[in-house]
């Protein structure tokens, strides 16, 4: 159960960071080749999804791990997720096209 939750939180953080990365012009170009800047509505939506995901991650961890482990796991899984998004954008940016 705990391991499933940890994997879920990692995926949640990965998706949240990916949403933020897809707001940046240089990464949008890598993902969609010739992408236009994100419209205001898309920007708002992506930021909201990222914020909810980031807030939801520690809450979910807290229920299974307790506060001490949850906080440590949260910022370490966030770091791992941010690194994973960066490496995806470096070597397989097309994969992020599948994201909504």
């Amino acid at each position: 159960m705990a391991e499933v939750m940890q994997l879920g939180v990692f995926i949640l953080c990965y998706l949240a960071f990916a949403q933020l990365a897809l707001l940046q012009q240089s990464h949008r170009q890598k993902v969609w080749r010739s992408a236009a800047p994100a419209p205001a509505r898309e920007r708002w939506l992506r930021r909201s999804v990222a914020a909810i995901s980031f807030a939801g991650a520690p809450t979910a961890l807290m229920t299974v791990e307790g506060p001490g482990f949850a906080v440590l796991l949260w910022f370490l899984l966030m770091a791992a997720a941010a690194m994973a998004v960066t490496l995806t954008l470096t070597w397989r940016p097309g994969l992020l096209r599948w994201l909504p």
Partner: protein
Amino acid sequence: MPGDGFRASLSWLHTWAGVLLGGLLLAVFWSGSLVVFDREIDRWMLPSTRLGSPPVDLSLDRLVVPHAQRLAGTAARWSITLPSERTPVIQLEFPNAEGVSTRRFIDPANGELLPDHGSWAATGFLFPFHYSLHLRWRNVGYWLLGIAGMGMLLLLVSGVVIHRKIIREFFTFRPHKSTQRATLDLHNLTGVVALPFHFLISLSGLIIFFAIYFPTVIERIYPRNSAAFSTEAFGNYTRQPSAEPATLASLDAMRDRAREAWGDEPYMLRVWHPGDAQAYVEVRRSFARQVTMNVDRMTFDGSSGALLLDHRTGPVAAIQRFFSGLHFVQFEHWTLRWLYFLGGLSGWVMIATGLLFWTGARRARHQRHGHTGAHLLDAICVCSCSGLILATLGFFIANRALPADLGRFEIDRAALEGWAFFLIWASTLVHALIRGAGAWHGQLLAIGGAAPTAVLLNWLTTGDHLLHSLQQGRDAVAGMDLLLMLLALLALATARRLNRGIANG
């Protein structure tokens, strides 16, 4: 000299703090990453301790006390560390006749005393190296580490301020651009992404040794009686021996009473003045299931078994012990353990790429003008990165290659392993001073050869090849072998890439 303005000043500070402390920080982060798995490395280095899961309940009176009384003799104290998920043996620790701390391991299934391998292994060598560099004279090592920790905090804060495109380049890594560009990207990426981890790990490292770095705090609050601080904060209990003999009461009964009071397991028992009527026994509570390394301990009379002191962690001590626990990673949590390992290595990469960027930007200019700065830093960087890895591998190889019975010739086998580490490390510095940046290729190839050699020697000396370790459920040994093979592959791939880079000009 720093330029005008806040950012320029911090840039100057970031550069020079990094240049001066980089080598030291690399050693600390490398050893820190390794000791996250110190118990697992111990299983690899101490083959007789590769046992299955320990029994749920065991009798200390029957299995351990006879060994302790025979081995420790008239020692002023001896300690028993109970087996756990990561350490399947009972550890007995006592000062020998010369007063040197000695440890022996006992099989918890049958009480058999396991053979002494003559090795400090990771918990006895790599762990103290991480926090003291084995420089005990006047606490020099602790102070160097304190300066490094403080410097790391400065480097992190100044790094955030001077990074002009911290948001725009948050997810940026361009390995196909110039080497300098890729190096700086990697430095920024590892620095920014794992910033909270690096900050907390450096800060908590300083907080652990607060009594060394800020002794005046204790002296001010407890003038003329610093022992009172240890009693109030950590529950230390002391009394002098009476020189009247007495038999030791049941340790099992004391352990059971502590277990009942805490609703949790003890992890260690320490007997003071064993055999004396004034003997007392300290029972410490486990922190396997929490970040905070609690200081809950119950102290019992050694003769009657009566409770003398029941100390619980106070609120202020709990804050200090939370930071200590956050740094020591003594809790049993495998996901966090792996994340700590990767976080530590990311810090190591951040420091190494920072140094490489500095030398890369100046190497040609310094060579043109006959300056030695870049050459010297190249040598420090090589010695602190590939050199330190080679020294570690030399330590592992010495552990498996040195004959087990060196004690017969009155040779301290454990010390020889330590000497192998330091001599190899020193020779990598000499090599790097002679070859400069050119030393990278040779040392990476040496890593590519040394790591599989360690794996092979483990197989030859113990019969535990990778498949056998996996079949026997010896995950620690299999994990160590796998990581050594991965290290060899990474080193060879990097050497190949370096070669290609040189060939392409």
